[in-house]
């Protein structure tokens, strides 16, 4: 996230507290995570269900080969992707603190 899109940078309250779109990106909810989903790319079929069912838009297809990755900046570690993965290609592993 660029500094200019950080809404807290030199924050002055706008008239009526009108907020700019998409600025929640500054809040990296990955810090909430206790378990981290790890994708076994060999087992992954690229079906995309992890992406479909991620409440935080953290599971994403990243190339045309249907490779999927987890955006650990935002993944809260809920584990839905691991539960819904039809080929058990996602494992939840404890975050190492």
């Amino acid at each position, binding site marked *: 996230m660029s500094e200019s899109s950080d809404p807290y940078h030199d924050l002055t309250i706008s008239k009526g507290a009108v907020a700019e*779109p998409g600025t929640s990106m500054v809040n990296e*909810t990955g810090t909430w995570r206790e378990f981290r989903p790890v994708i076994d790319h060999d087992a992954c079929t690229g079906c995309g269900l992890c992406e479909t069912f991620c409440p935080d838009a953290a599971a994403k297809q990243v*190339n045309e080969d249907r490779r999927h990755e987890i955006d650990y900046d935002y993944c809260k570690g809920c584990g839905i992707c691991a539960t819904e993965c039809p080929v058990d290609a996602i494992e939840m592993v404890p975050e190492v603190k």
Partner: protein
Amino acid sequence: MSSQDTAPPEPEISHDDDLFKPGHRACAGCGPALAMRYITEATGENTIISHATGCMEVVSSPYPESSWDVSWIHDVFANAPGVASGVEAAYRAFDEKEGFEEFEDHDDVNFVAIGGDGATFDIGMRSLSGMMERGHDVLYIAYDNEGYMNTGIQRSSSTPFGASTTTSPAGSESFGNDTQKKNMPAIAADHGCEYVATASIAYPTDFKRKIEKALEHDGAKYIQVSAPCMLGWDFDSAETVNVAKLAVQTGMQPLFEIVDGELSDVMSLSDRKPVEEYLETQGRFAHLFSKEGGDEVIEEIQEHIDEQAEELGLDR
């Protein structure tokens, strides 16, 4: 907290196309947050959302942050439909009057109002009734997590029979909530909404198709999407979609459309599961399995579902 892997750099992950951006403060495994994603994916950019107070409003808009990449306005708990009525009327006026050429055409904008079940079934029902009765060109979407989760899991008139909440707790004399869920889709249909549907976050393709279909209709539209709350329903965050699926598969949450007042497109079930399989996944129903007499309550819930299934022609 960035990755400390020594593996080759991960490919770039882009959120450019997300209209409900990450960084929102919903619980891990939030069902309603999935609904917000699906709504924005289906409506696209040319959308103005009027949002009621509630979980999804609070988690998405702590000033100066916003998860919304579409135009969005929140006012109070009870008035999202009233606010949406005003937005829609303003665009109608902009179309008809001179001097507003810089605004999008009314017909090119999707006017959407969103509220939880508390905002929809209870406190905002007058506002919703007025919006529907007047026929504003607004799609109202109720995300239904069956209670006041934002304020700490109190019962609403959407809370199912037998569910324990903080204001309908199971106790020595109580099996939890003692009323049946209010039938909002029927109420919406009786207002003359051309398009009414139920949906589930477990069936996103169906949900998004229904949103797109709803938006093809002029006037007021109503969609109610079942969106389990891992916190309020008390299940593991990884199970949100499974619980939502079970709600559909047991007939607890039937999926259907009402178009021009006629029931249609019921998602029928070839092998409807007993409701127990759904109830046992959630702590809010745990007392039904541990307390004497709980089996009778489960039976009552099953009977209610069976009656509803017959009315809807749910069983294949």
